[in-house]
């Protein structure tokens, strides 16, 4: 197990370095050097003599070799220095710290709801295969995998916000300020983010439950006269959950990607909306930082998933 973890950690480190290289060099594909991009946004552009530009280049370390610049950039990130936003005139790290709790609040709820209720739905449809529950829920999971989140969001707003008037249609309030309002505001966006995970987990859980049902030890459990509850909960559930765990990585990736759309639909000031507005505002320092942080989160989640998977299923770590 230790060997497996060490091997997996080294692999993750290599991937992490590649991720930083991708983010850094893609940003460098922008025409003009970063000083020009920076200066062009600071109004005094026309009056800028070449000497000042050179001085700025030296100040930002841009006169050095590109690999040195890369190293400086990475070193800066390790110190928590993501650069300064051109639009907000604020430290990008601070800016992200303001916005991230919102996205994490929604995303975390979506992950939990997707995992718990998805697995539950999958379990029930497998146990009641072919019955009405299975026949209604299983086709719905297909829809859950394919519906565009923004369409789902607008549909929910139309039905529950406009027509029925049950829920506020947009905005975000911290649960610490007004817990009740906050909860009412997050119901629809969290559902939108969770729907893919709900559907994917339900499908995976259903098929792995059906797989486990055929195993000898389940027949033995039935044969020795155990009740349905014990057979399902004690013997089938645990083994069926293993494949579901692997979906966690994909699920987090989908939720982080979806947050960009969902936050736009519901006008939620999270990292997703910051990302989109920064792209249109050509605030590349922010775009770069958010892309990197999202990728690192997914890298970490995948690492944890792989290690726990190997811990749960010995065939993996010896494979």
């Amino acid at each position: 197990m230790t060997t497996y973890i060490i091997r997996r950690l080294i692999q993750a480190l290599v991937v992490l370095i590649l991720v930083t290289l991708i983010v850094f060099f893609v940003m460098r594909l922008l025409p003009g050097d970063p000083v020009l991009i920076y200066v062009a946004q600071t109004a005094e552009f026309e009056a800028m003599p070449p000497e000042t530009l050179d001085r700025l280049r030296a100040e930002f370390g841009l006169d050095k070799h590109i690999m040195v610049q890369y190293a400086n950039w990475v070193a800066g990130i390790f110190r928590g220095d993501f650069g300064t936003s051109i639009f907000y005139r604020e430290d990008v790290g601070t800016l992200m710290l303001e916005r991230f709790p919102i996205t994490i609040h929604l995303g975390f709820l979506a992950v939990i709801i997707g995992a718990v209720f998805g697995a539950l739905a999958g379990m029930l449809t497998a146990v009641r295969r072919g019955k009405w529950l299975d026949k209604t829920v299983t086709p719905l999971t297909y829809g859950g995998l394919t519906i565009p989140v923004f369409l789902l969001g607008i549909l929910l707003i139309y039905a529950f916000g406009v027509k029925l008037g049950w829920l506020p249609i947009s905005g975000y309030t911290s649960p610490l300020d007004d817990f009740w309002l906050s909860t009412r505001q997050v119901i629809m966006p969290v559902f939108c983010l969770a729907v893919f995970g709900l559907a994917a987990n339900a499908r995976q859980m259903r098929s792995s439950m059906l797989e486990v049902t055929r195993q000898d030890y389940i027949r033995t459990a039935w044969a020795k006269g155990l009740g349905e509850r014990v057979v399902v909960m004690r013997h089938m559930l645990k083994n069926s959950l293993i494949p579901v765990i692997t979906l966690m990585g994909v699920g987090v990736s989908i939720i982080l990607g979806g947050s960009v759309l969902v936050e736009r639909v519901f006008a939620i000031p999270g990292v997703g909306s910051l990302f989109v507005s920064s792209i249109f505002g050509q605030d590349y320092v922010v775009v770069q930082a958010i892309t990197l942080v999202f990728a690192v989160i997914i890298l970490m989640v995948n690492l944890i998933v792989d290690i726990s998977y190997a811990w749960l299923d010995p065939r993996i770590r010896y494979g």
Partner: protein
Amino acid sequence: MVEKHTSDIGFSEAPVRVSEWRRFRRVFFERKLVTFGLGVLVLLVIAAFFAPLLAPYDPYELGDAGESLLQPSGEHLMGTDILGRDTLSRLIYGARTALMVGFISVTVAGIIGIPLGIIAGYFGGVLNMVIMRAMDALMCFPMLLLALFLAAVLKEYFSGIWVVIIALSVAIIPGYARVTHGLTLSIKENDYIMAQRAMGSSNSRVMFRHILPNAFPPLIVLVTMQLGALILAEAGLSFLGIGIDPPGAAWGAMVWDGYRYLANNPVLWLAPGIAIALVVFAFNIVGDGLRDALDPRLRGLL
């Protein structure tokens, strides 16, 4: 597809080919939902190719005063948008955008991703490590986020829809490479590959004349699924306002524009939204049907 595939490996046994094709048809068309999905895709292709003939109005023509935001009627089946343009016509032209982005991206990414996967799987070693770790790194970015990130840079070099096509192509390369890599690892263990090498075939001949054709059936399933994912991502990008060539019609952008008239003109966002959902659903269900029909392990079970 299946016929081509079997004729590549089964150099004799004509009857086997016939029964394989029959089995494919039977399994594929057995599920009504798959047939429905196929119907949707046929409609999509027809709409895209014959858009000028099918569209009742010019999708770009601005309406006169008093023609904007009309409710659905006999004259405009789905009403008009804020600029007085016919929604149904724009919907039909939107099929072109969706299909074009989907097909070009899936092809470009395949041309890059499939060889990468075969090379990594076939040669193994350092080459494998370098290629697959690079793919892992690309997989760390959520597809939509990576596409947005690339689009932010690419829009300095390309215009409109090409930004989206290139960004999405790059975003799905790792999907191809991973699947092809896995397939290559298992296919190269077959005796017929060893026979080829014993006969002195070059590496590239073994890789592209023998491994690639045998990897075809699962790759076709992957392509179908990816087309769905691409059209969904394209809709997401155009919903956010990336890669639109005004006055061109893209479904995602139509949903965003219609969102402003949420309660008064629901057809404005509902129609393109349902079009996206239907097409994505169709690609997924057809991909599922293809998987069941093409998977030799399910032979006898289905």
